[in-house]
């Protein structure tokens, strides 16, 4: 019997729920995407190779295969055991070491897995009190940097390679020379770091070389938080935010969920108060004022879009509303009033928001973004203090006085010829220094330049002078402090791959210190902090943190007078207009400030909001785009930018002062008007093979465009008076946004808190109608329609020890994409390149779906991680002609890669579109073949002067990659997961390797007893482990006490496309929004549920039943309607 899918009439009020601007407009391009069903190339042959050529090549391949048949016998392989067995090592058992990923002024504590001596996966360290073990996407991807094929592989002097010993001796000699002159003419340019060892060395060297000068530069600098706090409280303190204690949060352009430092801890605290076990649980509420659409905005309950320059007056307005109710702040209010008067905003929004924050009392928290001027930060600190939040939602920790010198001062000194020796430790100033400094010329001035850098020949490569290779953090001894000041070790898991050196060693050598070995330096720092006890040191390394080393909060008292004085100098930037636009420079969610440009995992991780990969784009709001006549809203020009479902975006030129940057325009609803968003980190000309992977007009160019030329000392984060002109050219953009659209069914289910409280099982009410039951079955008393697909699992279910399942809490998920990168790392998911993504061939097993809903000018965003649902009655299985995908006894939908012949029927039959096909041998192609669109064949290509086919023949694993690529990239692979070849279908396996590993470990423990059930919580899938929000839980659904069972028992639990009766093992907990009824932008229903409501549904159970009655004849009750 054919099940007829329920009809899905368009809602009366028009579509409320869309995934892209194209869909909203229902453009022909979008219809094409939608109606095509399969991406290009899946159902027709469009590659430039003709059928005739294809047959030619194939026959040649068969011939070769025939000639080579004799080689099918097993090759002789050797087992090479140790000569002397190392202690505590068992071959084949992975080792885990605690380490930490150092960030600018903090660190993310990690546990790193090493397999046979090579690091293969980083995970958060959950042993640390207050740290649940989540990470961010950068920490996950940092592993691949270790195996970057374009990293520096040796020491150079004046561009020519030199021996390591020669270079290190030269450093020591330099140390002796500068000691003689007490460091006159010596300047250091540093990056920010939280390392106590570096701080100690720096102080020691400063004492020894008093004339040496120190400078620090970060293109994205979070030091402003410390500066503001120190100003407000009159002592050296830095704020530490406890989002977990915050019930009412106001973000003043602060992307604390995405782009701020330590976002992973913020997310953890924030999400904790979004998860509701019952309808009566308390929830936090987030107000956001922001210019771009950030991750924080996407998670806000109320979002005010305002130009970045307008944030200061808006903050002042809110502050006046709050502070005038408090005593002792009259001087501050006085200082604020003129600022507040300079801005315009919805006054009700401000007063109601302020009222709610006051009601929140000491559980309120106000945050200011790093890109905002100091005054906004001052306001945030004053408000927190006035609301009594100090000590609950924010505490102030003693701050280490940082290096004071700025890159501007250094540039001046360089140009004045005051610097004879310049030491650049890390960073990439030629690429990212403010454009007005003309850094490339300044850097060349000193007679001696020494640079410690990670890439082989990047932008800041010193042509005349020394280049030293910088060691990866997994190759270095070091230390760091986390956001709360806890001391964590940076522990190496591998010897530096190319003899690279650490920052500590270079500093110690130049400073002529007695200890130059980084281990000794770190050990000594530890001794000074904690004493010389060897056991304490070993425990520190083992646990990955020093117990009790978290900084003690300092008592602070606000100095209203000082703050008022500081506020008096505040200047409000002019409001942007169509002729004088405002530019906001945004730290990239994928490439940071450019340091991840040569990291394929990050390049291919979609931006959470735009879903663009391999590129940055010029972000504008729909209104601005229309007004300026650029982009897709330019209906007058009638130039379609998508052809056959592909984006060819209009290129625009942004003029900031005298600088011009060019890039494709991208319209994002919800952005402030007359604002341009520019993402940093792209367009690096010399980052390496991954970054250089775009083909434009037959030229190989870097991914994205470089926006640093538009950034000067005075407008590092916000620039005003910019102009935007549309050009006649177009640029191809790859976006994963329109892939796998689900046509407006209630995929994401949301309710406001009060609806949830009234109708706790609203998510189940939103189920669509179940499939009709045939009269014959009905006569037999069958209540529920049988599944379309026979389900062998039912026979095994009761017998098996485990039944695996997953639940994802959409209330907690913030859309940060750490899970996406973690999955890529754990499961050997290849990168495919921009051209392949444009053909709809991205490989990621878990994708982060992003839906816009509601008002086009200020829509809501909802995220949903979508991965294989492991349907009990899986549609993919019944269409596989070779039984390559099947169920196991424990409810996993498994793929046997060796059986797969690549028909792709399974993918076509998957309603969730989560299966991925290897169109090319992504693991065997050289990196410069990522470019496309015409892919070389190994039959005709040569690599390193050798016929590619013969290379492949000699080493089938390596394929036709060059040796240097292969030798490095193979090290990053997880040995427990098959590396898939061309022609194979793949998909999320629920990390079957971890499941089997845990089951085996339990059986080994059980020996001859029957204690074989894996305890709950033992298995964490890679996505679950990485999730800083704890939004994913995995476990045995057969055990009613397991966490996953308890999640699934909640009212909010629902299955996606439940009416197909596929019975997914992955279920979702509906998202709850906590809107404030008094706010002017209060929406009675979340945007995503509006479409469903418009179909005469309601959150009240009875209305629903009525509706079910007139639908589907013969259907009496509606599933879930009781």
């Amino acid at each position, binding site marked *: 019997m054919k099940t007829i899918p329920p009809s899905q009439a368009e809602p009366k009020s028009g579509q409320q729920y869309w995934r892209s601007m194209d869909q909203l407009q229902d453009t022909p391009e979008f219809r094409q995407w939608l109606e095509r069903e399969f991406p290009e190339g899946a159902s027709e042959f469009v590659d430039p190779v003709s059928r005739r050529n294809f047959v030619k090549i194939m026959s040649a391949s068969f011939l070769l295969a025939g000639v080579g048949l004799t080689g099918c016998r097993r090759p002789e392989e050797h*087992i090479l055991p140790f000569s*002397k*067995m190392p202690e505590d090592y068992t071959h084949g058992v992975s080792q885990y070491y605690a380490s930490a990923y150092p960030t600018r002024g903090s660190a993310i504590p990690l546990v790193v897995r090493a397999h046979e001596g090579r690091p293969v996966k980083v995970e958060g360290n959950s042993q640390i009190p207050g740290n649940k073990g989540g990470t961010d996407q950068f920490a996950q991807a940092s592993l691949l940097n270790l195996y970057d094929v374009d990293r520096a592989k040796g020491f150079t002097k004046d561009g020519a390679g030199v021996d390591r010993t020669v270079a290190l001796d030269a450093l020591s000699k330099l140390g002796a020379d500068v000691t003689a002159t007490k460091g006159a003419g010596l300047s250091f340019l540093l990056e920010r770091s939280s390392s106590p060892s570096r701080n100690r060395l720096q102080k020691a060297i400063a004492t020894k070389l008093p004339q040496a000068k120190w400078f620090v530069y970060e293109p994205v600098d979070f030091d402003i938080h410390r500066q503001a706090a120190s100003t407000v409280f009159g002592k050296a303190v830095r704020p530490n935010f406890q989002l977990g204690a915050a019930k009412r949060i106001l973000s003043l352009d602060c992307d604390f969920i995405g782009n701020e430092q330590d976002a992973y801890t913020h997310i953890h605290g924030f999400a904790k108060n979004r998860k509701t076990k019952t309808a009566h649980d308390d929830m936090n509420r987030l107000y956001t004022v922001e210019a771009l659409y950030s991750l924080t905005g996407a998670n806000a309950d109320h979002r005010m879009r305002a130009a970045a320059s307008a944030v200061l007056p808006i903050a002042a307005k809110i502050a006046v509303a709050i502070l005038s109710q408090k005593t002792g702040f009259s001087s501050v209010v006085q200082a604020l009033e003129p600022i507040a008067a300079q801005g315009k905003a919805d006054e009700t929004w401000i007063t109601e928001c302020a009222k709610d924050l006051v009601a929140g009392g000491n559980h309120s928290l106000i945050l200011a973004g790093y890109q905002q001027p100091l005054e906004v930060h001052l306001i945030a600190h004053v408000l927190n203090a006035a609301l009594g939040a100090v000590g609950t939602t924010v505490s102030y920790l003693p701050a280490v006085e940082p290096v004071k010198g700025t890159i501007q001062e250094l540039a001046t000194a360089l140009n004045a010829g005051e610097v004879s020796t310049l030491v650049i430790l890390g960073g990439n100033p030629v690429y990212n220094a403010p454009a007005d400094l003309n850094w490339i010329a300044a850097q060349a001035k000193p007679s001696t330049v020494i640079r410690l850098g990670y890439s082989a020949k990047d932008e800041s490569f010193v042509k005349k002078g020394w280049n030293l290779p910088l060691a990866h953090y997994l190759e270095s001894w070091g230390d760091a402090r986390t956001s709360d000041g806890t001391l964590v070790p940076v522990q190496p898991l591998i010897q530096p791959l190319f003899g690279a050196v650490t920052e500590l060693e270079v500093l110690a050598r130049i400073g002529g210190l007695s200890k130059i070995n980084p281990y000794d330096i770190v050990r000594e720092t530890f001794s000074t902090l904690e004493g010389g006890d060897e056991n304490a040191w070993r425990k520190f390394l083992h646990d990955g943190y020093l117990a009790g080393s978290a900084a003690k909060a300092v008592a602070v008292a606000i100095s209203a007078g000082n703050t008022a004085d500081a506020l008096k100098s505040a200047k409000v930037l002019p409001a942007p207009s169509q002729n004088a636009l405002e530019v906001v420079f945004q730290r990239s969610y994928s490439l940071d400030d450019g340091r991840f440009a040569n990291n394929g995992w990050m390049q291919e991780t979609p931006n959470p909001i735009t879903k663009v990969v391999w590129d940055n784009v010029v972000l504008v709001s729909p209104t601005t785009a229309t007004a300026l006549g650029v982009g897709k809203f330019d209906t007058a020009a009638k130039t379609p930018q998508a052809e056959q479902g592909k984006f060819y975006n209009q290129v625009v030129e942004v003029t900031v002062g005298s600088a011009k940057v060019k890039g494709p325009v991208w319209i994002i609803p919800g952005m402030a008007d007359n604002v341009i968003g520019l993402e940093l980190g792209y367009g690096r000309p010399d980052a390496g093979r991954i970054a250089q992977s775009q083909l434009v007009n037959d030229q190989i160019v870097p991914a994205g465009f470089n926006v640093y030329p538009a950034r000067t000392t005075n407008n590092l984060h916000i620039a005003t008076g910019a102009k935007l002109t549309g050009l006649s050219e177009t640029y191809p953009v790859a976006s994963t946004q329109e892939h796998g659209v689900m046509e407006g069914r209630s995929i994401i289910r949301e309710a406001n808190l009060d609806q949830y409280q009234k109708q706790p099982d609203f998510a189940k009410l939103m189920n669509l109608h179940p499939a009709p039951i045939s009269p014959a079955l009905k006569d037999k008393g069958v209540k529920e329609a049988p599944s379309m697909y026979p389900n062998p699992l039912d026979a095994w279910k009761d017998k098996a020890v485990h039944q695996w399942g997953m639940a994802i809490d959409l209330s907690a998920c913030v859309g940060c994409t750490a899970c996406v990168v973690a999955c890529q790392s754990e499961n050997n998911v290849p990168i495919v390149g921009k051209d392949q993504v444009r053909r709809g061939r991205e490989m990621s097993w878990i994708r982060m779906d992003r839906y816009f809903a509601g008002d086009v000018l200020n829509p809501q965003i909802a995220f949903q991680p979508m991965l294989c649902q492991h349907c009990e009655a899986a549609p993919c299985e019944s269409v596989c002609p070779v039984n390559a995908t099947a169920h196991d*006894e424990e409810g996993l939908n*498994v793929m*046997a890669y060796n059986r797969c012949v690549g028909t792709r029927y399974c993918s076509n039959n998957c309603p969730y579109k989560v299966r991925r096909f290897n169109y090319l041998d992504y693991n065997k192609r050289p990196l410069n073949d990522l470019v496309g669109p015409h892919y070389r064949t190994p039959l005709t290509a040569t690599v390193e002067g050798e016929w590619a086919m013969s290379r492949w023949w000699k080493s089938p694993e390596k394929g036709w990659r060059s040796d240097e690529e292969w030798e490095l990239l193979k090290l990053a692979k997880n040995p427990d997961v*098959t590396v898939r070849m061309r022609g194979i279908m793949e998909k999320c396996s629920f990390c079957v390797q971890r499941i089997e590993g845990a089951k085996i470990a339990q059986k080994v423990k059980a020996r*001859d007893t*029957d204690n074989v059930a894996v305890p709950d919580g033992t298995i964490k899938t890679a996505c679950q482990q990485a999730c800083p929000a704890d939004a994913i839980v995995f476990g045995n659904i057969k055990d009613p006490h397991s966490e996953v069972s308890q999640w699934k028992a909640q009212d909010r639990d629902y299955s996606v496309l439940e009416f197909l009766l596929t019975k997914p093992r992955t279920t979702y907990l509906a998202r709850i929004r906590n809107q404030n009824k008094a706010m002017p932008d209060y929406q009675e229903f979340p945007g995503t549920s509006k479409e469903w409501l418009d179909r005469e549904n309601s959150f009240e159970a009875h209305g629903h039943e009525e509706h079910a009655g007139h639908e589907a004849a013969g259907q009496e009750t509606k599933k879930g309607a009781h």
Partner: protein
Amino acid sequence: MSDIFPKWTNKLPLLIVVGASLVGTAVTAGVWYYFTPKYTRVGYQPKQPVAFSHKIHADQLGLDCRYCHNGVEKSWYSNVPAASLCMNCHNQVLKDDPKLQVVRDSFNEGKPIPWVQVHKVPDYVYFNHSVHVNRGVSCVECHGQINHMDEVYHAKSLSMSFCLDCHRNPEKALRPLEHITDLDWKWSDDPKLNAEKQQAYGLEMVHKMNVQSSQSCSTCHR
């Protein structure tokens, strides 16, 4: 006309059909048999760099398998011992024997001994030693009577059907844990009695240990 085609050609079509089918059957049968692991693998006995005899060490001297293969209970992999382990005894026993020169060189110079791999499952098979030896499956089930081999050879096919035979009927292979590495151990010398006892014990243990030797793809392929 009859001059052109002699009379015997009348039978030609029949002969061709019969002959072709015979040849076809022979080729199919040949490929079928000779391309199986039973033929290609069983009996594989490469020359090893050191003439190490399991017969002497395991059988005559009575060393336990786990003295050398000490990772087998912990790892998926049953390790080949380091030269340092050989030298535990051979720095006293046969310490100048020229046959052990390779071992001494390895120990002194740090170069690994290039043993030739005999037993190997394909790369896409994730076989785990520890779960088998800890749950009552003896070495002998897959490796044969290694303790009687002077030079190791491939005794069983280790094909997918070989694995499945056991996974479908685990009771045939389960034995008391204390006899896991005793490769000669039997319930009884009488084959009939042995089989009966094995069956009874196996079924009891399958129940007692909650053995669910999985036969689904994910058991071995990930």
